[in-house]
C-alpha cells in the first residue's frame, strides 16, 4: 500500500489579482512533497468548494489580499458542505492580509489557521504535516449528500 500523499488546494478567491504569494507557497509545498493543485486567479467560493470536493483534498489554502475574507471564506466552507464534502475533515487555511482582529472570528467558522505575510514557509509545511493526520478521515466514508 502506497503512502497516502497529502493533497493541497491553493485557491485565489474573489477579485484580488495578486498571486505571487500563492504561487510561491504552492511551489514550496510541492518541494515539501505535497501534491498541490492551484486554481488560478479570480475563483468564486463555489468554484473553490467544488474543486476541493472533487479533488478530495486534505488541505484547502485560501489566499486573499483583498480584505473580503469575512465574506468569501465562510462561503467557501458553506459550499464545500453543500457539495457533499465535509469541511471538518479538511484543514482550512487562510493566507494573506488578515487583520488579527478577524482571526478569532475566522477560526470560529471553521478555519484552522491563518498565515499572514512573512510567515516562514517551514511553519506552514510543519503545520500541515502535523495537523492533516489529526483530521484523519472518519472510518466511514460519509458520502451522503
Amino acid at each position, binding site marked *: *500500500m*502506497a*503512502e*497516502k*500523499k497529502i*493533497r493541497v488546494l491553493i485557491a485565489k478567491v474573489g477579485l484580488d489579482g495578486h498571486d505571487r504569494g500563492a504561487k510561491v507557497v*504552492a*511551489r514550496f*509545498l*510541492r*518541494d*515539501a*512533497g*505535497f*501534491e*498541490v*493543485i*492551484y*486554481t*488560478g486567479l479570480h*475563483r*468564486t467560493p*463555489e*468554484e473553490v468548494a*467544488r*474543486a476541493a*470536493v*472533487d*479533488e*478530495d483534498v486534505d488541505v484547502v489554502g485560501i489566499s486573499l489580499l483583498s480584505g473580503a475574507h469575512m465574506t468569501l471564506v465562510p462561503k467557501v466552507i458553506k459550499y464545500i458542505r453543500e*457539495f*457533499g*464534502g465535509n469541511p471538518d475533515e479538511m484543514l482550512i487555511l487562510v493566507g494573506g492580509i488578515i487583520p488579527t482582529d478577524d482571526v478569532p472570528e475566522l477560526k470560529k467558522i471553521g478555519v484552522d489557521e491563518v498565515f499572514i505575510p512573512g510567515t516562514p514557509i517551514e511553519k506552514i509545511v510543519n503545520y500541515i504535516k502535523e495537523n492533516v493526520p489529526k483530521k484523519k478521515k472518519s*472510518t*466511514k*466514508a460519509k*458520502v*451522503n*449528500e
Partner: protein
Amino acid sequence: MNYDEEDVEELVNGILSGNRRALARAITYVENDYPVGREILRRIHKRTGKAHIVGLTGFPGVGKSTIVSKLTLEFRKRGKTVGIVAVDPGSPFTGGALLGDRLRMDGFDANKNLWVDSGVFFRSMSSRGRAGGLAARTGDVVRLMDAYGFDIIFVETVGAGQSEVDIVEVADTSIVILMPEVGDDVQINKAGILEIGDIYVVNKADLEGADKTVDWLKAMLEMNEEFAKQVQLTHARGGKLVSGKVFNSKTNGWKPPIIKTIAEKGEGIKELADAIEKHYKYLKESCMLKEKREMRIKRELFELIMEEVKRVVSSKMDYNEIIQRILNNEIDPHTAAEEIVRRLMGA
C-alpha cells in the same frame, strides 16, 4: 487485505447512483492503492466499458489543457457529460507535484461554467515519478468515472511527446497535439507520437509556420501509411514482420485527420469534436473498438502480473542471497530471474 465492508458498499452505491463525493473519495483510495479501492474496482467492473475514452498528448505548452477545456464545453453543448483526468508530473525525488491543469479550465460561456457544472468532473493526478505520460492508476481512475456514467472521458497526459505513448493503453481515441515551430521533421519523425495518433491537431495555428507544420505532418503520415502497406504485404507473404495495426488504425481504413485549432479563441474546436465523434463511430462499426480494448486489457494484465510477481518475490523470497551470487559472478541476472520464476511456479 482489509477493508470496511460498509465503506465499500457506501462508495460503490454512491458511484453507481451519481454521488460525486463518493467518486472523489473512491478515486483517492484507488490512487493510493488502498484495499478499499481495489474492492471498489472489483465491484464496479461490470458497469464499465460504456464511456468513450479520449486521450490527449503533446509537448509541454502546446495547449492540451486549453483544448480539453474547450472540447468539454463543446461536448456539454452536445448534451454529453464529461469526466477529465489530467496528469501532471510528480517529482520522483520529493514526491511532490504542482498540478496546474485545472486552472486552464476556462471554458466559460454565457450560461455554462465548467467549474461548477454538475455534468463535468475534473480530477488532477500526479504521475508520481512514473515515465510514459500517465500515472500508474490512471486506467483505474478512468474506470471509476466510466462506472459513474460519464459519456466522454478525457485523459490528458503529462506534457511529453517523444516516447510518452502510454496514452494508447488507456484511450479509445488518441489525439496528438502539435504546434508550429515545435521542431523540424526529424523531431516529429522520431519514434512515438506519429504511431499513436488517431487525430492530429496543430494548435496555435495563428502562429507563423502553421501550414508548414501541417505539411510536414501530412508527409510523415503518408509515409507511415506507405510503410504500413508494405508491412502488411510482408506479413501476407509469410514474412516475420507483424503489422502494427492496433496502433496504426490507418491500416484498417481510418486516415488520421489533421485539424488546425486556435484553442484560446475556440477556433477549430467544433471540427475537432466532430472528428472525435467520427472516430468513435468508426471504431464501433469496424470492430476496432473491441480489438483496441482487447489489446489494452492484455497490456494492462501483463503489467499487473509483473506487479504481482514483484510483490510476491519481494515479500516471500530471500532474493538477497541471489543478489550476492550475482555480485560474486556465480550466476548472471537473466539466469537468476528465470530461476526465481521457476521457483515461484513450483511453489
